[in-house]
């Protein structure tokens, strides 16, 4: 940060990004953020860098420990014990054990990615190799500040109800849900009278980094649908003036946040059950 108590502000910025400030400190920092565009920009940059680190170094799943001990055992240099709770059927044929390679044969992940890029020469590889989607249900830690639906709605209001993404057709709509949750979702067409889909609000970390918020209008009133995988479910608090209804479609749960007395959207959603190629063809991001 280029101004103000340099180091102290950097420390505060880091703590904010890490979600390590207590509620009072956080509120105080956010008040400052409100009037400091440079500080806001600095935070966005730090978040972009952190996201890059997560992409560059995805944490291995916890069960890799067993695979590593198994590989060490295969080397036969020393007695290596089985993990106490190891399942014999899986430890005998561990998944994805990578044999040790001599240093001169090691090729960096990036050199490999570059080769693939050169060979494939297409944007698809840019997406999937350099920007792999977060793996839902993996053990990858995703530190973020979980927010309640009320905060998500406040953000939408602050942004004048401007959606992050507006899908032009069903394929794009389903592709977006598939990208974030590995399951497609659709609403029937035509929509029931009085229902209007406005667009998507992304990066609303209500339950995870993948949480999607669909912005709709029902009978002229704003109604939101929070979507995430069951893996990330947790109890949510109703925003003031809204009621919360929960539904499920396949591996997803949906919370309808509505000022109305009953849910109007939950029962409409369905899984189009398309293949991966169809979803990828619908991706516009």
């Amino acid at each position, binding site marked *: 940060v280029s101004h103000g108590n340099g180091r102290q502000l950097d420390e505060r910025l880091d703590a904010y990004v890490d979600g390590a400030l207590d509620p009072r400190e956080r509120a105080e920092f956010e008040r400052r953020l409100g009037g400091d565009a440079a500080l806001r920009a600095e935070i966005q940059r730090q978040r972009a860098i952190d996201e890059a680190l997560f992409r560059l*170094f995805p944490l291995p799943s916890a069960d890799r420990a067993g695979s590593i001990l198994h590989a060490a055992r295969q080397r036969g240099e020393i007695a290596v014990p089985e993990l106490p709770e190891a399942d014999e059927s899986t430890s005998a044929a561990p998944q994805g054990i990578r044999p040790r390679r001599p240093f001169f044969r090691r090729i960096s992940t990036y050199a490999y990615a570059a080769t693939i890029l050169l060979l494939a020469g297409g944007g698809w590889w840019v997406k999937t190799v350099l920007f792999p989607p977060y793996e839902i249900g993996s053990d990858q830690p995703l530190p973020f500040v979980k927010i309640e639906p009320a905060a998500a709605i406040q953000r939408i209001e602050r942004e004048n109800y401007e959606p992050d993404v507006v899908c032009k057709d069903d394929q794009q709509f389903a592709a977006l849900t598939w990208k974030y949750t590995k399951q497609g979702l659709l609403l029937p067409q035509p929509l029931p009278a009085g229902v209007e889909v406005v667009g998507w609000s992304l990066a609303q970390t209500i339950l995870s980094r993948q949480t999607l918020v669909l912005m709709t209008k029902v009978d002229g009133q704003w109604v939101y649908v929070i979507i995430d995988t069951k893996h990330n479910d947790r109890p949510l608090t109703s925003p003031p003036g809204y009621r919360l209804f929960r539904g499920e479609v396949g591996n997803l749960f949906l919370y309808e946040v509505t000022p109305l007395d009953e849910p109007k959207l939950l029962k409409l959603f369905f899984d189009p059950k398309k293949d991966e190629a169809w979803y990828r063809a619908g991706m516009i991001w």
Partner: protein
Amino acid sequence: MDRAAKPETSRSEVRPGNAGRLSAEEFAASFNQSFRLFWLIAVGITRDAALAEDIVQDAAMIALRKLEEFQPGTSFNAWMGQTVRFVAYNASRKEQHRRNSSLQPADTDGGLTRLATPEQAELTMGRRGELSADQGCFDDHVMSALSEISETARACLMLRTLGGLEYSEISKVLDIPEGTAMSHVHRSRKTLRDQLAPHFAGWAGTVGGEA
């Protein structure tokens, strides 16, 4: 910090009993619990995710040979973390030596192969700091900028950012004072932001661009 899946450290650490030496089975249980913590140390030092697994494997082999050196009642993670650091530093030196003696120009920036010209790599960002899919070079620049940070500082950064560890926990597994761990993280992040500043050009919120 959110701790949804943080690597286990002191609070949940398996502490082998005070009586007798650490058994191989106790080692396996403790290793299983803290494996990702060790991986983060290794990847911080080497900047190579694949190599990090090899390092952790080598460190496990060494530790198993020296089980009698473990002091019962002390922290397994601190003991094993020391071995991982030792192996990782050695691997890093070897890799550095190999690169220095290599004639392959693609290796000169730390194993990175440049994927685009600076013009191609200029980064623009969405309203919430999201990268668009066709701006795939930013990660390469982050990787390159990481080379400007010391190995220990990188390990602190990884443990904090990717592992979500408290500074006290980082202090323990890296055997450095807590204040040093904190300082490493702050400086590392600042260094990365400064190093990457040119790649945020064109973004509305560039430092100094807005009052």
